[in-house]
């Protein structure tokens, strides 16, 4: 929902928003990150995308740019050269043909650009440059602390989760290197808090060793260590107690679905017993707030699955009341978002629930949710626009520009979001948002992002999809390699899971 902000930033910088209207070599507009894995809705605005991890490829692109400036070549010549760098996607060198009904017929590379752009990864995280002396804003910011990245990728393979697929293969940093980086970053920034960052912190193999090493320095230096992204099924209370010497606040877990059957279908392998056990220990140990995150609209979901969210919340609330030792009472918060199918996941072919369907399910949940539980939900209209752009093609760029010209900004913020303006933009540009959000794709359809690869094979995604329909789980990558294909990016083809 930040796409209009990108156009706005270009405009505020005094630049034409479309790449073709910026004819000079200076400036070049470059983008990356998770959205680059379906760059198509932004294709006409951005000169070049970088797929995957930037540490090395950014330097290669800059070197190429320096040479282009030295030699005084045209922007087009620079882009042609840059397209030869692995991981660089120059959208203007790709020609997209459509069927009459709007589906993509083919994507063809021109000007010597590769047919398939494969993302870049860092093979050895211990050897790559990692900034310890960072810019430290003097005003309070989001993440106002040292962020220490412990590993990339995720062993879990939750079928709805794009991050779980596009950041593969799993690569860890060594505890020694992390301890040194963390302490240096604190000394150089002056921060008094370190937060470990990864997709699932409790899956880091050397977590105890890392925490011990950091705490040895943190405690005498009044520095806090925080551990987000913990899973309910392998959560260590000893660790939590050691780390969280400061006040006991709340716990947050994301079971994502209410019933075990649906949790199996999405491969979120958390069992209710594990959740209950963790919560019991937490409440007995004095914690008094619990937040639970769920999604509605997941593939194969029935009304029974939806109601099960309320039942699970009820059981957790009863458990909390029975076991809590807190004098202030217990608070359970349930937050329910609307599922958005994402590219490069096993659910990339699925239709999203319609807004009416989401609203009906929210109403159903409201009717069943115990009064004592704090219940909040997301606006399905925002999730609908997200779903349109998540799996959009480059024709959507017109709608995006139209929406921005009609005043859309900061659409991720409820107070700025105008559904009407977005729908007007689709109407004016002759595009049907349902075509993108609410349509199930055939598995032989050419998807707008098929020429952008994160290293995970399409066959793996299809296998995972059919297992989802059978509510069959896939064990995590440490139990058994699932053959997703991302390991081929590593020398020797063995991943670090």
């Amino acid at each position, binding site marked *: 929902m930040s796409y209009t902000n990108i156009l706005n930033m270009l405009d505020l910088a005094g630049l034409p928003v479309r790449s073709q209207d910026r004819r000079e070599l200076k400036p070049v507009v470059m983008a990356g990150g998770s959205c680059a894995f379906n760059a198509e809705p932004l294709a006409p605005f951005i000169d070049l995308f970088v797929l995957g991890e930037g540490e090395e490829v950014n330097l290669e692109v800059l070197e190429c740019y320096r040479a282009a400036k030295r030699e005084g070549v045209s922007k087009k010549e620079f882009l042609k050269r840059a397209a030869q760098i692995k991981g660089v996607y120059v959208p203007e060198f790709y020609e997209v043909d459509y069927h009459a009904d709007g589906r993509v017929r083919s994507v063809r590379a021109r000007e010597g650009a590769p047919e398939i752009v494969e993302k870049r990864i860092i093979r050895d995280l211990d050897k790559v440059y990692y900034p310890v002396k960072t810019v430290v804003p003097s*005003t309070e910011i989001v993440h106002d602390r040292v962020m220490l990245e412990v590993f990339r990728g995720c062993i879990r393979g939750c079928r709805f989760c794009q991050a779980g697929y596009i950041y593969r293969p799993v690569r860890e940093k060594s505890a020694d290197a992390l301890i040194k980086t963390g302490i240096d970053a604190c000394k150089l*920034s*002056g921060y*008094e808090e370190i937060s470990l960052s990864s997709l699932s912190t409790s899956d880091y193999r050397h977590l105890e060793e890392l925490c011990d090493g950091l705490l040895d320095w943190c405690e005498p230096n*009044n520095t806090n260590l925080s551990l987000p992204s913990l899973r309910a099924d392998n959560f260590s209370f000893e660790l939590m107690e050691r780390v969280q010497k400061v*006040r006991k606040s709340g716990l947050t877990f994301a079971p994502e679905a209410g019933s075990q059957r649906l949790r199996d279908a999405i491969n979120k392998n958390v069992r209710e017993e594990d959740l209950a056990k963790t919560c019991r220990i937490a409440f007995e140990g004095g914690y008094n707030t619990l937040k639970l995150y769920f999604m509605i609209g997941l593939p194969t979901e029935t009304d029974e699955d939806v109601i099960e969210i309320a039942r699970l919340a009820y059981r957790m609330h009863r458990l909390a009341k029975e076991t809590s030792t807190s004098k202030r009472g217990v608070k359970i918060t349930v937050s329910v978002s609307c599922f958005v199918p994402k590219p490069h996941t096993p659910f990339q072919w699925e239709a999203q629930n319609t807004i009416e369907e989401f609203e009906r399910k929210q109403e159903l949940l409201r009717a069943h949710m115990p009064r004592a539980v704090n219940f909040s939900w997301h606006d399905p209209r925002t999730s609908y626009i997200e779903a349109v752009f998540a799996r959009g093609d480059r024709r959507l760029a017109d709608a995006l520009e139209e929406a921005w010209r009609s005043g859309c900004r900061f659409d991720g913020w409820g107070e700025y979001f105008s559904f009407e303006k977005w729908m007007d933009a689709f109407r004016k540009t002759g595009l049907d948002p349902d075509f993108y959000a609410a349509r199930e794709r055939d598995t032989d359809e050419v998807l707008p992002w098929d020429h952008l690869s994160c290293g995970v094979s399409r066959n793996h995604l299809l296998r995972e999809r059919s297992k989802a329909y059978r509510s069959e789980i896939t064990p995590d990558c440490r139990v058994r390699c699932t053959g997703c294909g991302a390991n081929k990016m590593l020398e020797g083809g063995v991943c670090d899971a």
Partner: protein
Amino acid sequence: MRKMRLMFAKDGVASYLSHLDVMRTFSRGFNRAGIQLRHTEGFNPHPYLSIAHPLSVGVTGSRELLDCIVMSDGDYDLPRKMNEFLPSGLRIVGEADPDRDLNEIAFADFTLTLFYDSVAPAEAIYDLSALFSRPDIPVMKKSKKGLVQVNLADSIDRVGFEISDDGVSVSVLLKANPAPLNPRYLIEAINEQHLIPDFVRYHRNGFLDADRRPFA
């Protein structure tokens, strides 16, 4: 352990930092300089740092007071060390007696610069002098109980006007009993009289004691 009272200047981009951001920035500055501060011993340790009568956002100051407790005893090079690590606009300019009671602050010395696009400074000064020579200058002040009317004249010890390069320079001593009034109320009184300046710059020169000598 040593109690210290540091004097610092806050100007340039740092003038837009809020009080809490200034506290956090100093705390990080001490850490970067490797100077350990005494911390509270509760659940959530934070450094003992306090700033006397913190400036509003956008106001600059040249001799602001920061009290802290450093863990080492003999670090007399502290201001130089700190200045190496503070961001642009924040600077330690000296040290003061940490044992002097802050209640001895009797006045805050401000310079306000009023920019007028279409009024001649001399003309403005004439009207301003007339306004501030009145015994009653009512302004509405925001308090915890809502808006209350106060007499601005009660808070002003003395005020002077002169023409400066930029417009009209107002020197004013505000009584600090117990806390100095926010100087923006002067501007509100001026606005009431339709002498609305196009732009105002606020600067605090420092604090004075009851004898009108620099407090620190």
